[in-house]
């Protein structure tokens, strides 16, 4: 069953691709990438001596700036009206993310290239920093998806952007035992990146959970059965009331 459903959903992708590309608010996302690169170019320039720790700090700030673009990626004013289409909410949202991935990759390559070009002598743990960037973007998406349940017209960016800034600034002050922003070469580096990996997984799960289609939500059969037993009598009474009360 799930395989068939999945295939059905994937068959919709070509048809959804162009309309989704038109509906995405590109300005915020691309503006955030541009801002991130601009700030990095300002902070990391030739002639300014930098330590590996400072370099990594600037990279992290650049990541936060770029993640702000992702905060508004899921904002879709047409969402209430597209609920009825065959593609699920998760599919539509994933499609938006996939459409932005090439630009994201280009941004990250540009960031790494800039840092490498200016400071070729400093070691740069690219894999670990890429994990941090991916996790931060995933957390932003999860915040945006969760925020769409709170914000008017399901525009989660209003919630996600301030929440991202608050969480990121709080992360800089975490105690050493649970630090996320560990200085490079320190003892906490490896532990911090295990936490980043866990965070990445949790954020993707949260994104998927928050993007479940309200129309297609399926509860486990036991829960459904329980709900049916508990709801039967009041539901019937309620239905009777509805039919008997005159429309006003």
């Amino acid at each position: 069953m799930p395989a068939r459903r999945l295939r059905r959903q994937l068959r919709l992708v070509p048809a959804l691709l162009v309309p989704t590309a038109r509906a995405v608010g590109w300005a915020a996302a691309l503006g955030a990438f541009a801002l991130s690169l601009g700030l990095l170019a300002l902070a990391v320039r030739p002639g300014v001596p930098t330590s590996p720790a400072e370099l990594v700090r600037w990279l992290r700030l650049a990541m936060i700036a770029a993640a702000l673009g992702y905060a508004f990626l899921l904002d879709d004013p047409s969402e209430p009206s597209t609920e009825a289409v065959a593609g699920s909410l998760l599919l539509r949202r994933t499609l938006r993310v996939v459409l932005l991935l090439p630009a994201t990759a280009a941004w990250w390559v540009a960031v790494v290239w800039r840092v490498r070009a200016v400071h070729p002598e400093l070691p740069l743990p690219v894999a670990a920093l890429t994990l941090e960037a991916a996790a931060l973007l995933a957390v932003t998406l999860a915040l945006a998806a969760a925020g769409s349940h709170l914000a008017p017209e399901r525009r989660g960016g209003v919630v996600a952007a301030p929440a991202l800034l608050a969480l990121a600034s709080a992360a800089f002050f975490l105690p050493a035992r649970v630090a996320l922003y560990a200085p490079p070469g320190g003892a906490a580096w490896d532990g911090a990146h295990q936490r980043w990996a866990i965070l990445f997984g949790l954020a993707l799960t949260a994104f998927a959970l928050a993007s479940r289609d309200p129309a297609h939500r399926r509860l486990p059969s036991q829960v459904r059965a329980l709900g049916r037993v508990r709801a039967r009598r009041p539901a019937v009474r309620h239905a009777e009331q509805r039919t008997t009360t005159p429309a006003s």
Partner: protein
Amino acid sequence: MTTTVEHHDDRPPAAGVPREVPAEVRSRRSMLALAAVESGRLLRHPAVLAATALSAWLLWRWGKGTVPVLHYADIATQFPLAPLAGAALLATNLAVLRPHRDGAVDLYGATRLSLARRTVAHLLSVPPLAALGGVLVAADLAWLAGMPASVGTPHLAEAATGPALILLGGWLGVLLGRLWRSVAVAPLVLVGLAVGSLTLADLYVGGHDQRSWVWLGTLLRPVTIDPPPAALLGRPATWHLVYLLGAAVVLGALAVWRSQAQARARRRAQAVTGAVVVAALAVTTAAAVVQTRPTSAALAARRLAAATNPAAHQVCQRRGPAVYCVFPGFERQIGLWEPTVRAVVAGVPPAAAARAVPVTVAQRVGWFRLVEENEDDPTVGQEPGQAGPPVAPIGTTWGREGHALVISQARLAANVAARLIEQSGTDISPTDVPSTDAEPKPNPGPGPSTAGIGCNARAVVALWLAARASPQAAAGLRQAFTDAPSEFETWALPNDADVDDPWWGVREAKFALALLERPGDQVAQTLWRNWDVVTSPETSLERLGELLGVQPPPDSANPSGGVGFGPAC
């Protein structure tokens, strides 16, 4: 929810307001009512609540570590309020754009309140939040001033800079909302401003007073770790405050002007707003020009004088076994140092102590950060002409708890121990040392080069004495030694280094820390019996090891061992 106030405004006059009240007055009342509602919403906004908690926590965290120096603590209130300013930017922007998000723009058109008045109401909603910031700052400074041994007086302009920043952030949020309808703009601008300010602040720390244009940013940290005397601080705090407030008024007036232009308001009203913009711009520019002037020659000369000849700028007091020289106003800190100094002196044999006292403990500040960086004058901080006993340097910051406390105690104890051992071994001519208790005035200026005290047996004795002064001093020495870069053969306690701060050999420190594991009385007895030998500059670690019956740690840097293995030893 957003239309609550407008309903009041729209109500027929008979419902609440007397009929004869003119429309202008009713409109102004409605505006104030809207401002009150919006300020309440702003104060309850989740971002503002989170930022308030973060700000309060940052203020507390900064304040609890060290004994406060109030003319530095006021500067330190500015950065903790930055989250609140950022939250104000986001929250006011969201408030201004609320009608667009809720599709209520057309409803607002039916109310009496014009777009410009609504903008003014949004602007007026920010001052209460700035006042909240002011309350946080005032509470923080009152808390710090109430601490025992706090010194200095806060500068009003420095203390008001944080709240001014909140105003600036809030009004920028309103302007952005009036310029662009996208809620994505404000977070991006906020991140741009924050990172840009950090870049500027970094330039300031690296470039000292030469790049005075960095004051065009919003926030600047002080440059030295240890606070210099207030008169030598040289921060254009008042002009910077005027600059920030002027910029805030420019932003606010631009927001109103934009609303008037959008709503096609009367020409006269627009002209008035335009005049406010121009006037505020003039004030801001003037303040920008004044605050970015380079350090005055007089101040630079005073700083240089204080760096090369601190004695002339300090007051000295003899208390017990030591003479304490402090910058005027810092006298209350002396009481904090006395127990450590007494404890170190108590560890020295009485006969040697009688030869060595008084030890001069003098405050030092990392002057090299304040004195111009391209200063070729080699005399800065190391005037060899002033022969006098070298002092035991101590910073103007004294720790209250945690890392700061143990490091302060370790530095003082180690420096006092170094001086005691030097002075008990070498014969100091009595002319240099005051013999009377009445107003002694020894020369607390930098003395001759102290290279050598950090090496050989006497360095081990000095460090062991220092560590025995108190458990905190021992912990501080351990921490500083562990944190020191391992690739060098010498290390120093982490502070704004002074020329009188000894550089300790790594091997010596290992030996001293190993000695701490042994019974203290036993070691003390052996040392006291052989005091002249163990404090002689020539005695090697191996000899000391023989005396104590302890194997000295192996010399990892130079397997041949012995004297002179490092550049400083």
